[in-house]
């Protein structure tokens, strides 16, 4: 009996214990976080010798500027540093970087041997105490130090965000100088950040709308050299241009390369009507893609080359349409208030950027390719002509200010609508075309 009572009490004791128990670990769901620039530290790269000292400092600053310029990262001032990186191979003192809340750390070293420059770098996840990816090095001439800095930035950006960078890329644009009624326009090309501007044409003729080829070696643009708008193609390296012949008695403009670079699509005015045409660059043969009494212009290929988004006023006001790349029935995708124009398909293929005019204001916006989720990113007196960064994360466009002294400036904005900022150019700028990442 006593044994039975003891067993009963023990059983009751153990049975009551798990009353509060849960199954396994504590499980939580998190669906709200924060969106803010990620703090990083980029101490000056370590020079391997006196000849590399200036390059090391300059490359570090360009890398930091590239990352900060995205709006996704925030550089921690070197004044706050506890650790000093004096050797590229020395172990990282993570505690010192944690203390200043540096979540990422970029370390590097620069070596100069004659005209040869080598950059080594590593990216660290400070709070995890481990390296992100493996160390990497780039070599080139000392003249190309900025490009090497951009390449380092692309790698750091890619390791921190998981998507490709856009720093080692160039932008073609129309450089504008002089008053509004006597503006001089030249075709120019520059690094994505406004450095290394080179002029490709003189200001003898009006030039418009340069468009990079998919590989970045050629440019299409429209020139009034003959008094009528004509399409030209320019070899970027040799700075040699040639006209793309279209039918006599017509005017052609608004060209854009196909993704494979073998053909172009453009607008052609014939008999007072504007339609879209496609030209095979090897044969020079053109075929008509649209045939309506409306004005059809500003065509842009989808990344896979299967479709074209363009602007048409067939419904009464300029709207956006998508049709098969070889022509056919077009589907309207813009249905909001106002006028839509200059659509450009995202390199990722999921979005279309456009210019919108509504209630006396101009906007740069994005929408999904089916027309849903329209989102206006900017608003000003005149914003137009969007172009995508190679990774589809940033849009560059033209902003013109009001009045006789109004000036055209290039701007860029993140597709989230954050980080709206001007792109510094020596003169005014318009009609940007963002080229691909360089090899």
């Amino acid at each position, binding site marked *: 009996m006593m044994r039975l009572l003891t067993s009963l009490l023990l059983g009751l004791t153990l049975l009551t214990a798990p009353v509060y128990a849960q199954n396994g670990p504590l499980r939580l769901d*998190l669906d709200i976080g*924060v*969106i803010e620039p990620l703090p990083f530290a980029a101490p000056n790269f370590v020079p391997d010798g006196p000849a590399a000292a200036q390059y090391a400092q300059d490359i570090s600053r360009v890398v930091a500027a590239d990352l900060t310029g995205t709006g996704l990262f925030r550089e921690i001032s070197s004044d706050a540093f506890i650790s000093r990186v004096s050797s590229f191979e020395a172990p990282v003192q993570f505690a010192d970087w944690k203390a200043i809340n540096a*979540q990422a750390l970029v370390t590097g070293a620069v070596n100069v041997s004659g005209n040869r420059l080598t950059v080594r770098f590593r990216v660290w996840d400070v709070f995890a105490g481990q390296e992100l990816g493996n160390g990497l090095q780039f070599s080139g001439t000392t003249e190309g130090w900025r490009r090497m800095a951009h390449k380092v930035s692309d790698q750091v950006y890619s390791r921190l965000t998981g998507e490709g960078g856009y720093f080692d890329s160039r932008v073609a644009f129309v450089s504008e100088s002089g008053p509004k009624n006597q503006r001089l326009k030249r075709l120019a090309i520059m690094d994505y950040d406004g450095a290394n501007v080179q002029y490709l044409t003189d200001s003898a003729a009006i030039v418009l709308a340069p468009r990079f080829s998919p590989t970045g070696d050629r440019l299409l643009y429209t020139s009034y050299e003959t008094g009528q708008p004509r399409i030209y193609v320019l070899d970027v390296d040799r700075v040699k241009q040639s006209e793309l012949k279209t039918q006599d008695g017509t005017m052609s403009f608004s060209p854009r390369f196909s993704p494979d670079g073998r053909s172009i699509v453009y607008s052609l005015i014939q008999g007072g009507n504007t339609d879209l045409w496609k030209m095979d660059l090897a044969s020079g043969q053109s075929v008509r893609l649209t045939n309506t009494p409306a004005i059809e212009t500003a065509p842009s290929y989808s990344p896979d080359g299967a479709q074209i988004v363009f602007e048409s006023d067939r419904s009464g006001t300029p709207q956006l349409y998508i049709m098969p790349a070889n022509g056919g029935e077009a589907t309207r995708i813009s249905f909001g208030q106002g006028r839509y124009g200059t659509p450009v398909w995202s390199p990722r293929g999921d979005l279309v950027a456009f210019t919108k005019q509504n209630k006396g204001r101009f906007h740069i916006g994005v929408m999904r390719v089916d027309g849903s989720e329209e989102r206006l990113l900017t608003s000003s007196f005149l914003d137009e002509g969007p172009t995508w960064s190679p990774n589809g994360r940033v849009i560059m466009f033209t902003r013109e200010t009001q009045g006789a002294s109004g000036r055209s400036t290039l701007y860029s904005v993140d597709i989230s609508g954050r980080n709206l900022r001007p792109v510094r150019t020596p003169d005014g700028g318009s009609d940007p075309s963002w080229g691909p990442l360089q090899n």
Partner: protein
Amino acid sequence: MDTGTRISAIAHVSLIGWALFGGTFRSEPLPMAVQEVSVISAEQFDVLTAQRNAPEVPTPAALQEPEPPEDEISAPQPVEEEQPRPEVATPPEPEPDPVPEAVEAPPEPEAVEEPPTLEPPEPVTEVLPAPPGPEAQPRPADKVAPEPIAPPPPDVKPDDVETPAVSLDEGAETQQEQQDQTAQEEATDEIVTEAEEVEEYAPRTSPRPRVRPNRPTPPAQPEVAEDQEPTPPEPAPSNEAAINDALAEALEQSDEPSGPPLTIGEKNAMRLAVSQCWNVGALSTDALNTIVVVGFSLTRDGKVEGGSLKLLDSSGGTPGSVDQAYQAARRAVLRCGAKGYQLPADKYEQWQDIEITFNPERMRIK
């Protein structure tokens, strides 16, 4: 002379005599006021004129002019100083014992708050929607957080944790460590594009209220047919066998956490602590479509055990985006737990092992 003429003559004479001597038109001397006058000089006349131009007795409140700015009032104007002004516009003079009332009731704010009443009334009053307050209008800010945060004072150091300033007090018995005042950075609860900032005051989207959860289905009652004959009860097992079964079951569960469970508030506090460090701002579009489940263990002081943090599961996205999403989640857990999560020590077994599902779906539309 006939009788009538005589009567008439007597009556007229009597009337005239009564009027002359009866007192009806008696006159008396009127009271006279005497005013003394004197000759004054031109200077004395100017002084009198100046006093007459001084501010008059305050008009009724409805017609009173708004208070002029403080700097105008504080300018030396002898005439105004002579007037009794209940509104103390000039800065209070330093006194050995400052009067609390003077500080508590500054007159200027009242004058500023009241709209000027001297403006001519509009013939037609149009009711306009009130402009949204700063708390209602999304502000552009570098940081987007679950709750908007007002910008901190300029001399305050930004930090994830808000702490007051502590300065050295030489007279204090126990000396606290000196620290700067910190506050969280300014944050908005959604991204505000330039277009939205100019055109719209109200947010474009608002979180859809959650669907009311269905009522829990009551356990099905066993249908008992009335006419069914009650089944005979099964023979009860012996007490010893039941105790042995219960004992075995209890022993099987002995590795489960014990003690009272975390309250909803405690779980929310933990969730909030991690969310403040879960920064998805630098994540790619693919990573923002990726859900990761991260597991880790905590020490008794709430710190993450070294090497315990690992990716348990993921859904959506590419292998690369899973890695990025995991890195962001890992940074969140490690960064906000660097000083130890504040969890009830007596419930350690409940939170020793934690699994968190990081779902960035709602952050994509911020």
